[in-house]
């Protein structure tokens, strides 16, 4: 036996149990209000002044003799007198179940299990009965709040012009373009004095312009001028804009001047197992805060943590796909040598909550690459090649 204290058992809601709530999809009949039954309607006036315990005993006797209809009356009265009595609720569930009144039985068993999660019988019956659909009661309508009225008006205005595609392929409509460095941080500087921050900004501005003009993609830049933006600020901007894709633009540099070409990076689980563990650990912490009951080890299936893990996995996978596409499209459009797709643990990539790639458009340390990058028309060519990557 697990040494659960009575207090703890009672404190733990049914939602916190592994077999309740969305965590394993057992919600079915929503809150039948058994308490709403008028007491005067109950057909046993002789018991009217008796206490819940006596009523429950009477109900239990009726159940034991197979008189389920006769049990419902005293038990319904008992729970109205003592709404926190889980035993009475459990018996009421049994009586309804005997009468094949499944929604009522589900509601009573749910109440019993909510009040006392260690009531195995009620819990088990609830699990069994809700494996299949159970009828629900309509909820009463409440008057609308000011915000609800505003939301309704907004929905009338906007929702009708939304058109949905039914596909499950990943959709990119909002892109955050991140020109690396800026301001006091020039990034890499070429022998000829060309600065990474200027080239990256120029390509980013051109890319945004091309995308906005030629497609339904909306863009946002993390910086539009020569100033520095902190790394954390860049990913926060992507979250603020609810981007579908984050593209960071950089120019590479190496000690060996011969190094040249372009490459595309993405953050992957493979590249950073420790980071993947950290992300998973963090997401589990988030779920713990969102739902304190989720912190019960061994008891709970953290369904939302599972979904968050899937989300992260999906974004990393998509990042890899985008990286491959960008690299491939650029290979045919640019004179650069292709250095392929790499995965790495860049801050801006791992902190993004969407697919994210980092483009290294040539080597500023290579004299030939630097001379190309110094030409505005060549930078625009790069931007046009990158824009083709979005056509994937």
């Amino acid at each position, binding site marked *: 036996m697990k040494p659960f204290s009575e207090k703890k058992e009672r404190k733990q809601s049914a939602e916190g149990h592994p077999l309740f709530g969305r965590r394993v999809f057992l*919600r079915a009949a929503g809150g039948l209000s058994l308490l709403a039954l008028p007491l005067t309607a109950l057909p046993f006036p002789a018991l009217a002044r008796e206490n819940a315990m006596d009523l429950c005993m009477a109900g239990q006797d009726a159940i*034991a003799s197979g008189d389920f209809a006769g049990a419902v009356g005293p038990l319904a009265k008992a729970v109205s007198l003592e709404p926190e009595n889980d035993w009475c609720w459990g018996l009421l569930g049994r009586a309804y179940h005997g009468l094949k009144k499944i929604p009522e039985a589900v509601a009573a068993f749910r109440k019993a299990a909510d009040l006392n999660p260690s009531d195995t019988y009620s819990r088990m019956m609830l699990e069994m009965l809700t494996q*299949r659909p159970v009828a*629900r009661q309509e909820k009463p309508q409440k008057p609308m709040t000011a915000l609800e009225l505003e939301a309704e008006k907004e929905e009338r205005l906007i929702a009708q012009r939304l058109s949905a595609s039914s596909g499950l*392929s990943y959709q990119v409509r909002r892109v955050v373009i991140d020109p690396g460095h800026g301001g006091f941080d020039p990034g890499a500087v070429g022998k000829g004095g060309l600065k990474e921050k200027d080239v990256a900004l120029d390509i980013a501005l051109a890319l945004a312009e091309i995308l906005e003009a030629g497609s339904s993609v909306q863009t946002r830049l993390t910086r539009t001028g020569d100033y520095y933006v902190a790394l954390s*600020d860049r990913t926060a901007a992507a979250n603020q804009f609810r981007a579908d894709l984050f593209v960071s633009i950089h120019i590479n540099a190496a000690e060996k001047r011969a190094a040249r070409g372009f490459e595309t990076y993405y953050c992957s689980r493979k590249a950073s197992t420790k980071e993947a563990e950290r992300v998973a650990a963090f997401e589990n912490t988030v779920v713990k805060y969102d739902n304190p009951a989720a912190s019960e080890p061994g*008891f709970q299936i953290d369904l939302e943590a599972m979904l968050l893990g899937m989300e992260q996995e999906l974004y990393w996978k998509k990042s890899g796909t985008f990286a491959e596409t960008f690299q491939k499209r650029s290979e045919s459009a640019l004179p650069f040598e292709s250095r392929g797709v790499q995965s790495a643990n860049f801050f801006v990539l791992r902190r993004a909550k969407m697919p994210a790639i980092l483009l290294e458009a040539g080597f500023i340390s290579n004299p030939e690459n630097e001379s190309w990058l110094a030409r505005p028309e060549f930078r625009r060519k790069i931007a046009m090649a990158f824009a083709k990557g979005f056509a994937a």
Partner: protein
Amino acid sequence: MIARGLRYAFGAALVLVLAAPMLRADATVDRLVFEAADLHYKGEIDKAADMFEKAAAADPKNVYVQNQLGVINVKKKNYAAALKNFSRVAALDPRNTFAMRWMGLLLLREGKMEEARVWFEKALSVDKKDADAYYFLGTLYYLAHNPEKAIFYLKKARDADSDEAETHYRLGGSFADVGMVKNAQLEYLRALAISKRHTRTKNALGWVLYNQEDVEGAMAQWRETLDISPQDTEARENLARANNSLAWQAFSSGNRIAAKRYWQQTLVYDPKNKAATYYLDMIKQ
């Protein structure tokens, strides 16, 4: 105390009387199932699994037992075994929506989104008001960044049963994705009414408010997130960004004192923020 004693005294007998229609008129199987369910609740999943296996051997068509074995296998991360359990139930019981949703989820876990969708839709074909099936379908589209379809299904989940914070959270996000900020705000507030410690909702609500120029309201949400979860990186980054932006505005209008104060705040939330460090040094000089 008396009530509790009586309940347990009668409990075993009632199981045999009442569970019969659900299970089988086999007292051994009933007892195994009851004891296994109790062990499962207590977190003793290995013992529970052994007992459920015995029940399954005695009654191979017992769908409740198979579902419980599936859930235990998920807890033990034996996903392939769990898929077999739920698939067995789905074959035995065409109305078992519990198993259908799990089939969808386990396939989604493997990245098989189309196959997952088929199972959630199967659950809906059995129960048109299955809030969880709608929620998972909505989540599928949410993951695919298809907000219109996500809204379609998440609204149905909400209307079928609005007692889950996650439904409102994802619906809020989908509304924000299509620029329906009032609806986004409303759904986030509904999520917080259900779960006031839902930090992901607070972080997202902050941006919805911020984008409507309610900067103070946004920052209050993120500060509350940090009260709940002091290590929340996202809330820290959001606060750093908001303070940095305020600092820029103050600096650009010549108010260096305010700029200094905001950049100092930026460093409180993001101590390695190079921009704030640099400009604070510049102001000092």
